[in-house]
């Protein structure tokens, strides 16, 4: 049985519409921020801040929004899985009152 949350969470997505990019039997991240976004969602759910199924629903909804506008085309260079992930994460964090829009805006404004 999958006693480790990391294993359970990742396996639950495999073969499903929200499946993360993989290569050579490992998760595929093109950029460090993608890995951070992934790690954040996983750690927060693992530690009980939200249910993994709720995050997945948010991710699927975020992907659906994109596809409504751009169609289903995973080889389109405009497609960015982790951008969808990050949006889902932001929404779930707000829904759980862990973060507010104002706080994010303030933090972004500080960046050069």
């Amino acid at each position, binding site marked *: *049985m*999958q*006693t*480790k949350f*990391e*294993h359970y969470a*990742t*396996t639950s997505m*495999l*073969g499903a519409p929200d*499946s*993360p*990019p*993989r*290569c*050579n*039997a*490992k*998760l*595929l991240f*093109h*950029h*460090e*921020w*993608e*890995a*951070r*976004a*992934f*790690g*954040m969602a*996983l*750690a*927060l759910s*693992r*530690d009980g*801040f939200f249910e993994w199924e709720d995050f997945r629903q948010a991710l699927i909804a975020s992907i659906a929004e994109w596809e409504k506008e751009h169609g289903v085309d*995973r*080889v389109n*260079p*405009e*497609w*960015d*899985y*982790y*951008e969808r992930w*990050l949006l889902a*994460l*932001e929404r779930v*964090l707000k829904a759980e009152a*862990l*973060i507010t829009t104002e*706080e*994010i805006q303030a*933090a*972004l404004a500080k*960046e050069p």
Partner: protein
Amino acid sequence: MTDRFLYDPKREALSAAKAKALEALLIKKGVITSETVTKVIDFFKTKMGPFNGAKLVARAWKDPAFKKRLLKNANSAIAEMDFPPVMSGAEGEHVRVAENTSSVHNLIICTLCSCYPWTLLGLPPYWFKDPVFRARAAREPRKVLKEFGFDLDDSVEIRVWDSSAQIRWFVLPEQPKGSEGMSEADLAEIVTPEAMMGVARVELSPASRGYDPKAQGF
């Protein structure tokens, strides 16, 4: 990788900034620590991948006595290796290894995603869970293998192993010709999860590992 240059760099930068902002805020609020995310990423880098399986194969190729032990009792052979504790014995279940030779070829299928020996082979490919693949692999393995580009001579016997929750199978692929002089570490580099499932040969060139920049899951 050329397609990625068409992607708006501003969009990329915004995502990076947002991820950084979110993480900083969560750390500031004490929801996570500065180590939390790094630890998760490390887990996937070092534990969720085919490295351990590849190391077993490489060692078996270099050390015939180890190979014998691996084929006889995989779990105890695995215990000999220097794997992290959670990685030995595939979550406690029994592991069995089937050896490919010039006369016998082995193919692994499994009923559930959770029957996959993830601690040795990493994440399963999307098609592995597909019931059509599983049904066809059981019924007409030679044809399925051919579709994977694996054309086996009729004289080669094909054995299909069904992993269950109790027994996780993996394949010890044939060592490619010309690799005899390679070190164990270099050999481990060329062993692919597909080869350990029995749907591909081990090629000498790691470039043929099928890295696909367009690969987006599914």
